[in-house]
C-alpha cells in the first residue's frame, strides 16, 4: 500500500538526493568508529549515569528496608512503581510498533528511524522489567514466577493476568533482542570492514558473526527479519493487551473496563512515537544526520502520533461515558473522584497534554517545526505518565467501601525510582548511540536505490 504521507510536502524526500551508498556507510559508521565521542555525548552520558546511580542507591535502600520506603500502603498497594511499569512498557512497545508494524506495511519512512526505535525499545524494556521485581517485596524470589518443577509443589496461578504478563514480558524482551540483532547484523559487518584499529575490527567482526554479504546470507537475513516482524507486530499488541488485563481483570472500580487492552495499546502508540521523535531530533542534531533523517520522517511520525492521540481521545470518551451511563455506583463514584477530586489537576492536564495539544499536529506547519514537535512529544510523555499514575492510584484510593478509602503520597524514594529509571534508559540509549549504527545502513541503501530509480 503506497502511502502518501507527504503529499503536502513535495519537497521533502525520504533521503537527500546527494546521499550515496558510500557516503551513507561512512557517515553512519563514522559515528561508531570515531576515537573520541563528542562533548555533547559525554555530557548526556554523564548526566544519565548520575541518575542511574540514584537508581542503584534507591534499589539498595529498598532491598534493605522493604517497599515501605515507598508511599504504598493499604488500600493503595500499587503506587508509582506499577504505574511506571505500564509507562515504560508502553514506551518500549512504541519502538516495536514503529519498527515491526511499519515494516509489514512497507512504509519507507521507517527505514531511517527503525534502529532508533529498536534502541529505544531495548533501553526502555529493562526499566519496565525492573519495576515489578522491585515491587515484589522479596525480589530474590522472583524466579518463583517461572513454572518450573519444584519439590515445594508451588506453581504460579495460570489464571492470573499478572502471570501472563510475566511470561509475555520475558518473551517480548528476548524476541526484541533477537529482532534487533537480526536487523543490525549487516551493519555490524559494514562497521567491521570500515574499522581501522585491530581491536575494533575484532570486536565488530565477532559481533558480525562472519557476515560476508553473500546473496544467500542476504536472502536468509531478510526472510528471518520479515518473519520476526510478523511475529513481533502481534506480539506487541498482545503484550500491551495483557498489561491492560492486569487492571481490567481486577474488580477495583475504575480498573474494570473492557476497553483497557486496546486503550493501553493506543497509549503505547502515542507515547512510544513521542519518545522516538524526541530521540530522532537529538540524534539528527548530534550526529549531523540531516540528509538521512529528513522532514519526511518527522511528518510521518507526527501523523502517527496524531492518529494515536485521536484513538486515545476515543478511549477517553468511553472512560467518562461508561461510568455515567453504567449502573455500577462504585464505578461512577470513583470516576467523579478521579476527575474532580484530589487527582483532578493531573487528570485534566493529562487530557490536555495527550489529546488537546497534539491536535496542533493537524497543521503541516507544526509537523514541519522540530521545536514544536519536540515540545508536543515531551508533553505527551509527561501526560501519559500522569495518566498511568492517576488510574493506578485513584482507583485504589476509592474502592467499594468509603470507610476503606485512603490517599497515596509518593515519597522521596518513589521519585528517586522514577529519576533512576530515566537514568538507566538514557544511559543504555547513549551506549547504543556510541557503539552501534543508529541508522540502518542496509535498509537505507535500499531506500537510496529506490529513490534513484524513480
Amino acid at each position, binding site marked *: *500500500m503506497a502511502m502518501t504521507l507527504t503529499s503536502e510536502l513535495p519537497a521533502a524526500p525520504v533521503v537527500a538526493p546527494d546521499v550515496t551508498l558510500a557516503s551513507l556507510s561512512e557517515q553512519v559508521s563514522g559515528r561508531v568508529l570515531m576515537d573520541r565521542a563528542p562533548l555533547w555525548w559525554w555530557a548526556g552520558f554523564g548526566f544519565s549515569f548520575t541518575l542511574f546511580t540514584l537508581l542503584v542507591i534507591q534499589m539498595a535502600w529498598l532491598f534493605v528496608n522493604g517497599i515501605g520506603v515507598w508511599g504504598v500502603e493499604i488500600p493503595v498497594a500499587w503506587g508509582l512503581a506499577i504505574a511506571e511499569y505500564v509507562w515504560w512498557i508502553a514506551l518500549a512497545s512504541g519502538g516495536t510498533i514503529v519498527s515491526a508494524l511499519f515494516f509489514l506495511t512497507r512504509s519507507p519512512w521507517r527505514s531511517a528511524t527503525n534502529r532508533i526505535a529498536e534502541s529505544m525499545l531495548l533501553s526502555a524494556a529493562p526499566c519496565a522489567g525492573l519495576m515489578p521485581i522491585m515491587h515484589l517485596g522479596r525480589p530474590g524470589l522472583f524466579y518463583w514466577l517461572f513454572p518450573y518443577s519444584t519439590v515445594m509443589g508451588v506453581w504460579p496461578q495460570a489464571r492470573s493476568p499478572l502471570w501472563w504478563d510475566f511470561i509475555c514480558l520475558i518473551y517480548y524482551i528476548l524476541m526484541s533482542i533477537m529482532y534487533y540483532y537480526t536487523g543490525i547484523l549487516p551493519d555490524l559487518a559494514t562497521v567491521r570492514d570500515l574499522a581501522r584499529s585491530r581491536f575494533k575490527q575484532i570486536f565488530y567482526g565477532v559481533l558480525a558473526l562472519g557476515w560476508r554479504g553473500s546473496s544467500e546470507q542476504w536472502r536468509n537475513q531478510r526472510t528471518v527479519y520479515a518473519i520476526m516482524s510478523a511475529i513481533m507486530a502481534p506480539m506487541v499488541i498482545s503484550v500491551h493487551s495483557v498489561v491492560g488485563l492486569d487492571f481490567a481483570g481486577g474488580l477495583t472500580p475504575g480498573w474494570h473496563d*473492557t476497553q483497557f487492552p486496546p486503550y493501553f495499546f493506543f497509549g503505547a502508540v502515542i507515547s512510544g512515537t513521542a519518545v522516538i521523535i524526541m530521540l530522532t531530533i537529538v540524534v539528527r542534531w548530534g550526529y549531523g544526520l540531516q540528509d538521512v533523517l529528513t522532514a519526511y520522517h518527522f511528518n510521518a511520525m507526527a501523523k502517527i502520533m496524531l492518529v494515536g492521540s485521536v484513538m486515545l481521545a476515543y478511549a477517553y470518551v468511553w472512560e467518562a461515558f461508561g461510568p455515567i451511563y453504567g449502573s455500577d455506583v462504585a464505578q461512577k463514584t470513583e470516576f467523579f473522584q478521579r476527575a474532580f477530586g484530589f487527582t483532578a489537576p493531573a487528570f485534566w492536564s493529562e487530557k490536555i497534554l495527550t489529546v488537546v495539544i497534539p491536535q496542533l499536529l493537524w497543521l503541516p506547519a507544526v509537523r514541519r517545526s522540530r521545536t514544536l514537535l519536540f515540545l508536543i512529544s515531551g508533553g505527551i510523555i509527561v501526560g501519559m505518565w500522569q495518566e498511568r499514575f492517576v488510574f493506578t492510584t485513584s482507583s485504589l484510593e476509592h474502592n467499594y467501601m468509603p470507610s476503606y478509602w485512603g490517599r497515596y503520597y509518593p515519597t522521596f524514594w518513589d521519585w528517586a525510582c522514577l529519576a533512576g529509571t530515566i537514568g538507566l534508559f538514557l544511559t543504555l540509549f547513549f551506549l547504543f548511540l556510541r557503539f552501534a549504527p543508529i541508522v540502518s545502513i542496509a535498509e537505507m541503501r535500499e531506500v537510496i536505490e529506490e529513490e534513484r530509480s524513480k
Partner: protein
Amino acid sequence: MRRNANWIELTAAAFCMIGAVGCVIGATSDSTAFLRAWLCSYLFWLGLPLAGVTLVLVHDLSGGDWMATARPVLDAATATMPLASLAGIPAFVGLNSLYAWTHPPPDLGNAFYLNPSDFFLRYGTYVALWNLLAAFVLWGPRRGNSPIRSGLSWISGVGLIALGFSASFAAIDWIMSLEPTFWSSAFTYAQGASWFNTGMAAVLLTIALFEWPSGERRQHMSDLSKILLATTIFWAYVEFIQFLIIWEENLRLEIPWYLKRLHPVWRPAIYVSAGLGFIIPFCVLLWAPSKRNRAVVGTVCAGVLVSRLANTWLQVKPEFTEPPPFWLDVATVLALGGAMVLLFASFLRWAHRLAPAEAPIWTADHG
C-alpha cells in the same frame, strides 16, 4: 458488470418483492416480531454504506493505489446511505416493542440518556451526519486513485472522527441498550469493526464476482484483502477481550449478557460468526497467494457476509424472550437487502455510463 447489471437488478427486485410480501405477512400477524426482525436487517445492511464512507475518508488521509480498483464500488456502497440510514424508521416507530427502557423501572440510572425523545434526536443526527459525509464522499473533488485535495483533507479527518463517534453511539443506542443495565466499552469497538467488515466484504465480493482486475492491478486486491484481514483480526480481538474480561469478572450486571448468548439455541450463530468471520479469513488470507485469487477472495468475503448476519442476530435476538421466527428474519433481510442491492447495482451501472466507451469502469473519473 454491464452485461450482468440487468439480471442483478432484476434478481434484487425479485428478492425485494418476495421479502416485502413476507414482511407484510409478518407485520400483520405479529407486529412486534416484525419490528425485531427488521431491526436486525437494518443493523446488518447499514454496514455497507458505513464501510464505503469510512474507507474513502481513510484513503483521503493515507492514500493508496488500491483505490483505483475500489473507488467505483465504494462509491456505489456510499450511494446506498440514504436508504440504509432511513431504513431504521420502520423499526423505531415501534420503540416500545423493542427497548425495555421505554417503560423503565424507577431506579434505572441512565434514563437521562435512554429516553424516546433523546433517542430520536440522536437518530436524526446520525442520519443527517452520515448522509452529509456520504455526499462529501460522492461529490468531493477526487480522481481515480488520488485522495482528495490536501486543502480539503481536514474535512475527511474531522468527518472520520465524527463518523467513528456517531457509529459508536448508534451501537449503544440500537444494540447495547436492548439490555439497559449492561455496559461494555469494548462493545463500541466490536460493533464498529463488524459494520466495517460487512461493507468491506460486500465491496470485495462485488469486485470478485464481476470485475476482477488483471495485471498489476491484482496487487490492489491483495491490498484490499489485507485491509479486510486486519479488520477481521481486530474484530475478533475486541470480541475476545470483551468476553474474557466479563467472563473473568463474572459480575451481576455483565455476565447475563453472555449467558443469554451462550444458550445452546444460539451456539450455531456463535460458530458461524467466529468461524466465517475470523477463523477462515485469518487462515486463508494470511497466505499471500490467496489474496490474489478471485475464487478464494470471493468465497471468503461471502463467508464474512454470512458471519456478520449471524453476528447481528446474535447481538439482538437473545435479548427478546420471544425472538422473531427465522422465516421473518430472512424475509426482512431479503426485503431491505433487495432494495439495497438494487440501488447499489443501479449506481454502478450509472457510473458505467460516465466511463469513456470501451474503457473499463475502473478507469472512469468520479467525484
